[in-house]
């Protein structure tokens, strides 16, 4: 199913311009949250705002680090795209509604900038199998420079 990524504007942009985020050098993680988490794009800026993180076998609090991340610039269209390998949790037993992508390198949850979240549109479950968040083949998010 196709889902839409939603940027946390107050998490991504001010922190990027303040040099709190280094997409390619920092450890960017994908965490999972249950349906009881309510994302707020106006007020959620750091990871301590994310509640109801998933708990279950095969899932470590804080989520999984996104491997092999890259930035792509598309000339002519002025597009910047961030991409990485799919996030996976093998032999896991978990149920999740949201994926939250954030910069985990700063010292505490209160200083770890939120970048974006995805609403799966319903609960998805793994039972002793692999839970995968498969990103769009063209990337995780794109910023258009107008």
């Amino acid at each position, binding site marked *: 199913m*196709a889902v839409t990524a939603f940027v946390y504007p107050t998490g991504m942009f001010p922190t990027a311009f303040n040099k709190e985020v280094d997409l*390619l*050098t920092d450890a960017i993680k994908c965490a999972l949250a249950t349906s009881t988490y309510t994302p707020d794009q106006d007020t959620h800026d750091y990871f301590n705002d994310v509640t109801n993180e998933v708990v279950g076998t095969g899932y470590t609090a804080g989520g999984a680090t996104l*491997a*092999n*991340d*890259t*930035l*792509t*610039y*598309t*000339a*002519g*269209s002025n*597009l910047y*795209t961030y*991409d*990485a*390998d799919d996030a996976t949790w093998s032999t896991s037993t978990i149920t999740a509604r949201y994926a939250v992508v954030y910069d985990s390198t700063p010292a505490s949850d209160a200083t770890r900038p939120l970048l974006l979240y995805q609403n799966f549109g319903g609960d998805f479950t793994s039972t002793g199998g692999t839970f995968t968040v*498969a990103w*769009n*083949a*063209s*990337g995780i998010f*794109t910023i258009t420079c107008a």
Partner: protein
Amino acid sequence: MVMANPNDQTLTSLRSLCEAGALYVITPIHLCQPGGLHWEKMNAEQRAACEQAVATKQVPPLSSPYHFDRRAVTRIDGPDDKGRVRGFASDGSYTEGYPAGVLKRLAETMLAEKPKV
């Protein structure tokens, strides 16, 4: 015994695959949307159908690099002082990151099966 630096091996692979024309920058431009290659070949009716599909979120498949406008990589620059490299297409588009990530991303088209849709 001197062990080869894995980054050096990755850079060698990047450069040789670049010379072979096997690497592509995958843009976020879907082939069937404005700016995409298929868009240019569509008539007004087909374009309207595409726009309708996007407007109603019945978006075309997004799961393969073949669904997106791709640009052949013509040179590899770097590494810079942080160890990052850039794979450039002739129009100036590029993918940047550490060598392993850049290799994986630019080689996705080569490794992906061509989809039926």
